[in-house]
């Protein structure tokens, strides 16, 4: 099944997660900002979720709706296309990122526009649309404040929901002063002033925009309705003022019924920003004469989603509604940050979804390290509004990686596992190894071995080993229960009654 092609878009970093994370961990400011951001949103989310008396029932329904939608994706997409077309929209199908970019660039050209305004859209980042537009001489302006900051800085987003969290206010002020046209030179770093500077700059662009580009939070097959959930109002601006609107949407976002919105519009705001409802949600079904864009396009994107769907364990990753609740509870993400994953989809869901979309090509492929970027604590599964069992997907993908390596030149961990396997299969070898390991007590301090010479150092450079006990369990058992009992597995009581030939009985 074709996966997302390499060389286009942003689904793969240039180094493995452990290497990238090691680099990111050194960034104190990122860790501070991220720790503050994630703990703040965690608390807000917990508070508003606690208010909802039927939260678990909503999660169950959402999971069921998504499962049903995936199982009927071809019919739903066809139905969506009929309804969007009937209401004056044009539907395009894109097999991969390159095709989607070609389609959008073509549409912008056909509209005669040299600049477009964009709503924050993960899928357009995924396919590298801005780069494709720039290459065609089109100025693609990000209008979400954080995306604008990241774009002006020439950087990459580090979080699904608050992409500029790795910048502090002083840095943002610097970025605006350096890169924002017509900015007030006396601009301070007060967040309100910064936001107002962005407002003024963007407002002019909104008012003259001819083409808007968006993603989609959902599309309703039975009516052809598409929806955007946002906070700032830049969405409404891009969706309402330009004459042409181009929406790029992953095929997994389609929902069967309008009624399904009552589930997701409760789950999404509370899970993502920890609010009862986000400031603005906009929905539209095709073209409304005299109101909003009169040229409407919907680009349905595959780019590896069918490959993910083909994986029976992995396909539930397609249920994701991009709330980022999993990022905010993940102990790994909180410390490493989004850049370490190398993909526009970071954190727990990113570790699962990214390798499913791109496929992996062996242990040199950075994406093959993503399923291992987890302690499997399961916090993500607990908070996921659509109940994606991320830990199970990650374990499944780890097995996939290990299986893919079999039969080739064994790596270090495979050799270690083989050696360990041989020792554990043979009781005498195991007993001998236990005796030998006691020497490790010499290396221990405060009950732990924190440093071993090579090859043990490969383990201890990031993990501690508990110090071996004075006496192994098997030795204790043999001492307590009599010699030979460790091998026979028979207790002294059993041995006595068997030897007497008598059974336990009353008087």
């Amino acid at each position: 099944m074709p996966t997302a092609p390499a060389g286009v878009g942003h689904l793969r970093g240039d180094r493995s997660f452990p290497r990238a994370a090691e680099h990111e961990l050194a960034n104190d400011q990122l860790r501070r900002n991220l720790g503050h951001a994630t703990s703040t949103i965690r608390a807000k989310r917990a508070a508003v979720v606690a208010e909802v008396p039927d939260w678990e029932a909503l999660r169950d329904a959402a999971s069921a709706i998504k499962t049903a939608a995936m199982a009927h994706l071809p019919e739903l997409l066809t139905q969506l296309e009929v309804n969007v077309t009937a209401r004056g929209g044009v539907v395009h199908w894109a097999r991969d990122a390159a095709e989607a970019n070609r389609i959008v660039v073509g549409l912008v050209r056909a509209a005669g526009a040299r600049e477009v305004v964009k709503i924050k859209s993960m899928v357009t980042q995924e396919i590298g649309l801005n780069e494709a537009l720039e290459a065609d001489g089109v100025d693609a302006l990000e209008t979400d404040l954080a995306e604008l900051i990241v774009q002006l800085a020439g950087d990459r987003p580090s979080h699904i929901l608050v992409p500029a969290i790795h910048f502090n206010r002083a840095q943002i002020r610097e970025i605006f002063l350096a890169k924002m046209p017509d900015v007030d030179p006396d601009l301070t770093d007060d967040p309100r002033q910064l936001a107002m500077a962005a407002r003024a700059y963007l407002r002019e662009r909104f008012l003259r925009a001819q083409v808007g580009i968006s993603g989609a939070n959902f599309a309703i097959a039975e009516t052809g309705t598409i929806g955007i959930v946002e906070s700032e109002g830049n969405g409404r601006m891009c969706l309402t003022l330009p004459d042409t609107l181009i929406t790029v949407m992953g095929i997994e976002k389609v929902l069967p019924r309008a009624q399904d919105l009552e589930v997701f519009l409760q789950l999404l705001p509370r899970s993502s920003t920890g609010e009862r409802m986000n400031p603005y949600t906009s929905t539209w079904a095709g073209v409304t004469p005299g109101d909003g864009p009169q040229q409407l396009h919907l680009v349905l994107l595959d780019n590896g989603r069918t490959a993910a769907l083909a994986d029976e364990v992995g396909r539930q990753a397609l249920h994701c509604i991009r709330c980022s609740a999993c990022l905010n509870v993940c102990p790994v993400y909180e410390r490493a940050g989004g850049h370490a994953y190398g993909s526009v989809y970071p954190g727990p869901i990113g570790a699962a979804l990214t390798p499913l979309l791109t496929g992996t090509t062996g242990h040199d492929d950075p994406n093959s390290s993503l399923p291992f970027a987890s302690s499997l604590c399961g916090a993500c599964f607990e908070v996921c509004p659509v109940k994606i069992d991320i830990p199970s997907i990650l374990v499944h993908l780890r097995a996939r990686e290990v299986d893919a390596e079999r039969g080739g030149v064994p790596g270090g961990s495979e050799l270690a596992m083989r050696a360990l396997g041989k020792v554990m299969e043979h009781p005498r070898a195991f007993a001998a190894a236990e005796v030998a390991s006691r020497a490790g007590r010499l290396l221990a301090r405060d009950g732990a071995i924190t440093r071993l010479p090579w090859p043990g150092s490969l383990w201890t450079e990031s993990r501690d080993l508990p110090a071996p006990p004075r006496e192994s369990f098997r030795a204790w058992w043999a001492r307590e229960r009599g010699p030979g009992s460790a091998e026979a597995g028979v207790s002294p009581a059993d041995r006595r009654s068997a030897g007497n030939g008598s059974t336990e009985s009353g008087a």
Partner: protein
Amino acid sequence: MTDARAEMLARLDAALGSAATERTATERTAPENTATVTGGGPVPDVDRDYLGADSTWETATTGAALLALLTERIVDYRATVTRVTPDEVADVVARLLVGARRVVAPHGLDRSWLEVAAAAGADVVWDGPSQVLSVRELDAVDAVVTGSRLAIAETGTIVLDAAADQGRRALSLVPDHHICVVRTDDVVRGVPAAMTRLDVTRPLTWISGPSATSDIELERVEGVHGPRRLDVVLVG
């Protein structure tokens, strides 16, 4: 694009392990007919055990308690709520419009609501099919007054559906001050009840407070784009 469409549908069939022959011919052809396809259709509905529109949670919250909840939730978003009787609307609107020189309203809005403001000197412009303000003209307007389709008390949300008394979407977006009239009969408690009253084939705008961002160090800043001032007039 037929190649891409056919290939993607074929990939989906293969991924789901379903035989391509199971699909009927009508599901496979490009949409030449213009009739819309409604209903859940191909997908069986799921169990919905959550609190729906007909639950006691929804139906038992009515009257003053419902309106008090709505008010509390809207005020929490830093918008104002003024409770009035129908004959008081014009006066309250005029009071809220103090300082506004130019006001736009959709052509289907109750004209009497703006009489007092107009008498006090506000220049009221009625936007409609025969008079469509340009984006720049909207930008020069100080305030907009609209009706609404409904309000959701639990979340403090007001929904507009672009009907004649609410106008096209740009009207409630570009001006910096939005005065929104909500009828008490149009207030529901939760989102499921709201969905039973909304037509998603119309352009819908769900408004829960003024716009906001927390993108800079997570500090919430209100009013980025869209009206920075929202006043709700609750009439009934």
